[in-house]
């Protein structure tokens, strides 16, 4: 608790409040732009923080992170363009509300729900993180290998409906992560004689290439002709008494689903939003409204989405384990400052960790105060002509990638990955596993080899340690479970 108070001491200095405000505004601004999800928002905004002190940079990132989530829900509701799979539900139900002239209420329940969920989940983060740190301190190399494998399985088996496509994406990502100097022996690998590749391929390049350039190519080549219709909203975003009474329980239930699932090293935000949606549908007194714009169907999933966004920070901060594409890019931000999230960071740099957590509370309050009145300003962004919007994305993609190392080789890599991203989009292969593979692949290799060095080459080290074995078992279950269930369903319907 004392730590958190110190954290607020850091977060509430005028300078850091300003950075939080800048982060929240930038995050919302970029997040509202159609086609840009939270992961890409954070990736594109990385260069903005290169010049800052670590603490200020991360306070700004906290604002960008929550702001991008919020901006994404605005786009989903008014444009039916989910920036990421976690806002698909919001896009369906919220857009229906908006089309029925209830856009203002949909935005309001999303904003207030995000605030409630974000704040409660940040409280939970405050209490869970220290406990996790104590557990994590007892983890050895084998346990980390198991955890990373679990994260791999989670992100591949939960996204999309084709396991093999997820795995293809993941393995391509891990292969990209192999490029460069081997951190343990100094040997160069897969550099094909290009010296600029010795430092490896930056995750930012991968994310910007796959998400931004790939997405731009895909959208541009399928652009709907004619002007896009932004659903209008009248009045400020606000809730009537009835809206409120229909919203508050879904907010709390969404939070209760979102945080724990996000906090598990196997989390992600997709599952809780879908769970919350079907739960609200079952519990609602107005089930007939679902699919036609039910406010519960926006309130619950949006709360779940934001709560899991806070939950994802638990494995990220305490284990250094990103379980979403956005978290992977946040991890890159840490590494750029030479910081390694994990149990030790809480000891080595409590000011930074707790300042970051405190600024999550601050950012949430700012988002609520800003976004209820500003909703109509953000809406204007949605009518930017698409050619200008996507041309702008390309400019920022180029800037963000080039400024990593001031090298045009990175641009060539960016373009190649952009073509890959286009193909992935074309063939419905999910992109997030590749991004997580790039960053966790090298981590896994390091832990894997250290584990074997400690055990002097004895592979049984992975199956004789109880914690490691249990984590592997869970991973296996998650991988095979869905296949078995499907097989059983098929044979039942056949017989």
């Amino acid at each position, binding site marked *: 608790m004392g730590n958190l108070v110190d954290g607020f001491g850091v977060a509430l200095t005028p300078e850091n409040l300003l950075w939080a405000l800048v982060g929240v505004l930038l995050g919302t601004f970029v997040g509202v732009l*159609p*086609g840009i999800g939270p992961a890409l928002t954070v990736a594109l905004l990385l*260069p903005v923080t*290169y*010049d800052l002190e670590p603490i200020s940079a991360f306070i700004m990132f906290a604002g960008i992170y929550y702001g991008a989530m919020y901006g994404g829900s605005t786009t989903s509701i008014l*444009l*039916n*363009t*989910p920036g990421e799979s976690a806002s*698909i539900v919001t896009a369906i139900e919220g857009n229906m509300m908006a089309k029925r002239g209830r856009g203002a209420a949909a935005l309001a329940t999303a904003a207030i729900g995000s605030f409630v969920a974000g704040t409660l989940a940040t409280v939970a983060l405050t209490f869970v993180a220290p406990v996790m740190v104590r557990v994590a301190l007892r983890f050895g190399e084998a346990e980390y290998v198991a955890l990373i494998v679990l994260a791999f399985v989670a992100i591949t088996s939960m996204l999309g409906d*084709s396991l*093999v*496509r997820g*795995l*293809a994406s993941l*393995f391509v990502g891990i*292969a990209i992560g*192999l490029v460069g100097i081997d951190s*343990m*022996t100094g*040997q160069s*690998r*897969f550099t094909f004689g290009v010296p600029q590749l010795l430092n490896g391929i930056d995750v930012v390049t991968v994310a910007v290439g796959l998400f931004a350039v790939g997405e*731009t190519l895909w*959208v*541009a080549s*399928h*652009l*709907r*002709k004619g002007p*896009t*219709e932004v659903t209008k909203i009248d009045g400020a975003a606000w809730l009537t008494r009835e809206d409120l009474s229909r919203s508050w329980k879904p907010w709390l239930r969404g939070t209760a689903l979102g945080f724990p699932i996000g906090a598990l090293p196997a989390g992600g935000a997709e599952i809780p939003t879908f769970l919350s949606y079907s739960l609200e549908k079952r519990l609602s007194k107005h089930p007939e409204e679902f699919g036609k714009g039910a406010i519960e169907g926006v309130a619950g999933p949006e709360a779940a989405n934001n709560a899991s966004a806070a939950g994802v920070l638990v494995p990220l901060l305490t284990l250094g384990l990103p379980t979403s594409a956005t978290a992977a890019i946040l991890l890159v931000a840490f590494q750029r400052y030479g910081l390694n999230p994990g149990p030790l960071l809480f000891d080595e740099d409590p000011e930074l960790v707790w300042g970051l957590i405190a600024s999550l509370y601050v950012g949430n309050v700012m988002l609520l105060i800003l976004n209820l009145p500003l909703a109509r300003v953000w809406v204007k962004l949605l009518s930017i002509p698409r*050619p*200008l919007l*996507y*041309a702008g994305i*390309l*400019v*920022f993609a*180029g*800037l963000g990638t*080039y*400024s990593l190392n*001031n090298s*045009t080789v990175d641009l*060539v890599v960016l*373009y190649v990955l*952009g073509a890959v991203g286009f*193909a992935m*989009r*074309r*063939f*419905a*292969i999910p992109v997030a596993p590749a991004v997580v593979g790039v960053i966790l*692949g090298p981590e896994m*290799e390091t832990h894997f*080899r250290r584990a*074997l*060095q400690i055990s002097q*080459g004895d592979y049984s080290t992975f199956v004789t340690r109880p914690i490691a074995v249990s984590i592997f078992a869970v991973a296996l279950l998650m991988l095979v479970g869905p296949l078995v269930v499907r097989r059983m369903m098929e044979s039942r319907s056949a017989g």
Partner: protein
Amino acid sequence: MSTDDVPNRRRERLYELGVAAFVVALGIVVVWQTRDIRVSPMNAKIGPRIIPYIVGSGLVVVGVWYAVDVWRGTPTVGGGEDAEDVDADASTDWWTIVWIAASLLAYLALLERTGFIVASSVLFFVAAVGMGSRRFARDAGVAVVLSTAVYLLFTRGLSLRLPEGIVPLIVSMAGA
């Protein structure tokens, strides 16, 4: 993409098999390149080759699995979700891709020669026109203003280093 008619479905399956073949090929390249990684005898057992071998073979296995999946299963309709901006049923407009590719290559060629402002303006303008914008004056104006604003913001405000190129030269010549 309509998958109702047979020739289309057959072609779609062929494309997907191509993707699977790419994954297998990538795996083979990884395994083949791994053999070239130098390993000192000290690291012979747990060296820099283990994981690449696993990843390479993994790619081959996943690629074959993918191919089998495509061969047996129903083709997934590519492109995923429909959204307001995207007409997933429309066929790919390759001319737009060519335009965007041209704008990106121009950026690559110009960035370190003529500087960030010129390269970004060209990128923006060519890409916007390629995507069907026909208000040339507005697009050119936005391109120059955006590029200049971004340049000033990042180099003056945030001390990022970006190639300045020929712009200062032009400015000083115009001033003289």
